[in-house]
């Protein structure tokens, strides 16, 4: 019989074994994903510090003569805040080290992708990553390092320091890629990223040396997102359990350190009796800290003074049986003491152990829940508002989580954690990119699905420089272009379901739709994060946005249509009536042509006959 061996693997090793999931399945996809990860990290870093981004991306073949797939040097340079030199080895040399934890909108999650790219490069070429960073505007640190996959630890090969002048970060890796196949997607990615990031200047130098430069179009950065509390609709039982543990206050161990703290807070110079201590504490109850209040409360029941106490640990506080059990380290013995429910200290202890009341919990720990809403909810969920959350059984927690999902009177999630681009920058980007004859943009009000807030921004552009090749849809989520898996995307679904003929759009129109979904959690269909699922709430918002814009377009089209028609009429009558006159004159055997000017004018003015 074989014996199973269980061993732990490091996060690096886990990602190495599952790199397909992260978008590193083949040289084509890997090159594209690496570009994305580094560019998005650079943009996020600039956004975070409100720096107008200047991004330089370059891809160079190590040996241009070789056939694809081959080794490429990928370099992304930004003008962001840089990274403190002491964090660089960990940030780029370990997996799961990042700063992007928290509930707000960001392009990437946790900054894992960049490390994956470094890992992929190392696996395929055995070449180190080079990181140059300047975070203070004075010194430039350069690290050359490898990743120890088993130990999830950076191995620094070289670290040099020299004088720097501007903050920023440059990361360079060598990886196996296939530019001949990935090139068009990468160029699309850079193009579309520039469209949705009009406040950035982006330069891309491709392996042939061709430069694609997208200049900054707007100088104002969109409002940055804030970190916020969760919405009741967006949580599950496990989240509630974690939130309750956070609120739950442990009765601290009473030892010399704690006694000193109490003495300090109560300004006790010399030993006084427990009774006197309590009296003094009563007087300044609201000024003293919570741990001290708790300890004082416990002391009131134990009736021992500080002199006779070495160290005690409270083991249990049984509210139902009104007893407190503690372990005395000095005596090495457990004691049980009865609690007097009439004592003012009883309430203090009970609330400490059982946590906040449900009412307080709801108003304090969730966004946009006030006392009125909280009370209504308690009624709805059939909980007493003063029920202590610490006293809830497992069944009650499930019931609570369920009710939080079902209660419909909560206000919509707070969208302040979202960072839409804004109508003006979006509009300017569209005007610059497509130079259209008509354009309109609309930012919908914030909405939510399952407690996650989202905002839909959409733009539509027609004519001008747009080629008449039919409708083209540019999809973005959290300012990232979505390029793959177009077919199954909710935006495409909405666009395709639209009866464009109703909006006077026919054939292969020169038409562009730009859709941007911002959310703390984009409901992606797959791990590849390229297509958005058709959540009904999201679908409704997209549909409303598109219909609104399509109606505006239709107004433009009919105005344009009428103007075109009038112009066409005028042209036709000016061309043909003189000809008819010429022919008729000769046919009729006349010398002088008839006066046909009146007819040209009339012809140009008649309404189209139905």
């Amino acid at each position, binding site marked *: 019989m074989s014996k199973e061996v269980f061993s732990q693997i490091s996060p690096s090793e886990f990602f190495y074994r599952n790199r397909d999931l992260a978008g590193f399945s083949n040289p084509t996809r890997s090159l594209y994903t690496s570009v994305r990860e580094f560019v998005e990290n650079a943009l996020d870093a600039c956004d975070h510090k409100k720096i107008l981004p200047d991004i330089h991306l370059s891809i160079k073949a190590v040996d241009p003569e070789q056939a694809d797939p081959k080794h490429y040097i990928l370099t992304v340079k930004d003008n962001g805040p840089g990274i403190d030199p002491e964090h660089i080895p960990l940030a780029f040399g370990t997996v799961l080290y990042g700063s992007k934890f928290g509930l707000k909108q960001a392009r990437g999650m946790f900054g894992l992708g960049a490390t994956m790219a470094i890992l992929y490069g190392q696996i395929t070429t055995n070449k180190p990553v080079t990181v140059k960073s300047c975070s203070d505007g004075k010194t430039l640190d350069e690290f050359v390092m490898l990743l120890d996959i088993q130990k999830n630890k950076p191995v620094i090969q070289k670290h040099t320091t020299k004088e720097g002048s501007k903050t920023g970060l440059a990361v360079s890796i060598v990886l196996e890629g296939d530019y001949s196949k990935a090139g068009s997607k990468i160029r699309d990615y850079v193009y579309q990223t520039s469209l949705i990031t009009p406040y950035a200047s982006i330069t891309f130098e491709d392996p042939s040396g061709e430069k694609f430069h997208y200049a900054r179009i707007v100088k104002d950065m969109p409002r940055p997102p804030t970190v916020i509390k969760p919405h009741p609709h967006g949580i599950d039982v496990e989240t509630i359990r974690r939130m309750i543990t956070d609120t739950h206050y442990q009765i601290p161990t009473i030892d010399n350190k704690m006694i000193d703290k109490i003495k300090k807070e109560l300004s006790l110079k010399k030993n006084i009796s427990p009774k006197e201590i309590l009296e003094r504490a009563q007087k300044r109850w609201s000024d003293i800290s919570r741990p001290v209040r708790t300890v004082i409360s416990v002391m009131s029941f134990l009736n021992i003074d500080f002199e006779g106490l070495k160290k005690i640990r409270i083991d249990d506080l049984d509210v139902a049986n009104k007893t407190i059990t503690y372990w005395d380290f000095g005596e090495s013995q457990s004691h049980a003491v009865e609690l007097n429910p009439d004592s003012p200290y009883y309430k203090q202890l009970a609330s400490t152990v059982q946590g906040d009341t449900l009412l307080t919990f709801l108003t304090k720990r969730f966004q946009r829940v006030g006392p009125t809403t909280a009370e209504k909810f308690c009624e709805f969920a059939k909980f007493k508002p003063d029920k202590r959350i610490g006293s809830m059984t497992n069944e009650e927690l499930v019931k609570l989580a369920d009710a939080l999902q079902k209660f419909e009177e909560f206000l919509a999630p707070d969208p302040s954690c979202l960072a839409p681009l804004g109508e003006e920058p979006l509009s300017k980007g569209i005007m610059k990119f497509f130079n259209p004859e008509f354009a309109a943009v609309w930012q919908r009000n914030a909405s939510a699905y399952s407690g996650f807030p989202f905002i839909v921004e959409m733009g539509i552009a027609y004519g001008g420089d747009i080629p008449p090749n039919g409708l083209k849809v540019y999809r973005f989520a959290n300012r990232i272009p979505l390029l793959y898996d177009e077919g199954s995307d909710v935006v495409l679904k909405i666009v395709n379901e639209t009866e464009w003929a109703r909006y006077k759009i026919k054939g292969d129109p020169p038409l562009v739709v730009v859709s941007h979904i911002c959310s703390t959690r984009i409901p992606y269909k797959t791990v590849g994060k390229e297509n958005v699922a058709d959540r009904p709430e999201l679908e409704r918002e997209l549909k409303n946005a598109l219909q609104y814009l399509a109606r505006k377009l239709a107004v433009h089209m009919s105005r344009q249509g009428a103007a075109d028609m009038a112009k*066409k009429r005028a042209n*036709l009558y000016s061309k*043909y*009536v003189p*000809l*008819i006159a010429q*022919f008729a004159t000769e*046919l009729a055997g006349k010398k002088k042509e008839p006066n046909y000017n009146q007819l040209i004018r009339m*012809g140009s003015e008649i309404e189209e006959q139905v």
Partner: protein
Amino acid sequence: MRLKNKSNAKTAEARKKRLLSMLEQQGLNIYENLDKGKFPQFVIPSRSVSNIVYDKKIRQYILGSASAVRSSRNMSQLRSYTQLAWLAFFVNRLVREGKSSTLRDIYYSSQAFSIDFEDQPESDNIIVDLEAVLTSPREEFHIFPEERSSVFGDLTIEYTVPGYEGKRMNLSDHPDGYLIGPSLSSAELVDTSAELVIAIEKGGLFTRFVEEKVHKKFKAIIVDTAGQAPRSTRNLLRRLNNEMGLPVVILADGDVYGEHIAMVIKSGSANAAHLRELTVPDAKWLGVWATDIEKYKLPTIPMTESDIKRIYDLQKDPRYQEGNWKKQLEVFLKLKRKAELEAFSKYGLTNITDKYLPAKLEESKSF
């Protein structure tokens, strides 16, 4: 006995006068409308299928009373209105100056006047429109198709085309025959010794007939229709019948298309329902009949699906509802096989002229 045509010299001149007067009338009408600030328009008899009816009395297809208005007021008709006005203007020049043109030539001539036809079918259509407006065939406009069929036999003609006025010519002088073109079509028919006109579908057999001296043996004028007879050929056949008093007989392939070639010469086509003077109501279809295929044991080939479909189509045509026309269609449908005129060469190259033709001519006296 030689026949002499007397009335024709005047009719050609009269027809020209009538045409020019109609054109002038159209011109005046347009001119006055323009001057008064009114939108001029043409009234064109409708040529849609629903307006084409068979007139039993004159034994040809004619247009019903429905007509369409092409108005310069309607923007979508303005272009084709102008095209029609231009064509009237251009025809006026052609007729006045005695010049000829072809369908293709019209298409190209339009470009000099900023009248852009998209393609020749479009200009061909406008020509048919003008025919309908003026109820005159395009040959009177001096517009001819490119395809030309031929004629051979003892027939003296007198040209009316400029430069040849009064010049005479006998159509038996050249064994290849004479093209039925603008000059021949506008010529006066003067004199003939023939007693019969034989219209034959194919050039090859036309040559054979000349070689075999059919024109002498049968005192005939031989006309090669080159498939479906062009209008100028049908017009010539009609004039030979009308003006010279010659009976017309037709020989075509032994299939449904051959039968219809004969029918069109006899009673016109739906395409030309707006025109008269193109039919020979007394013309006789000699063959090859479906019954001849069995009777003369001709080698055959199977009909195609489109042949069979054509039979079903023609069975709906009012002219095929009775007599031999109806019977032959039914036999063709039963046989589902067809025979070409050349099939007779199985029995010798001269079999068709020595045996078949005399037999059929004899037979034709009884129908």
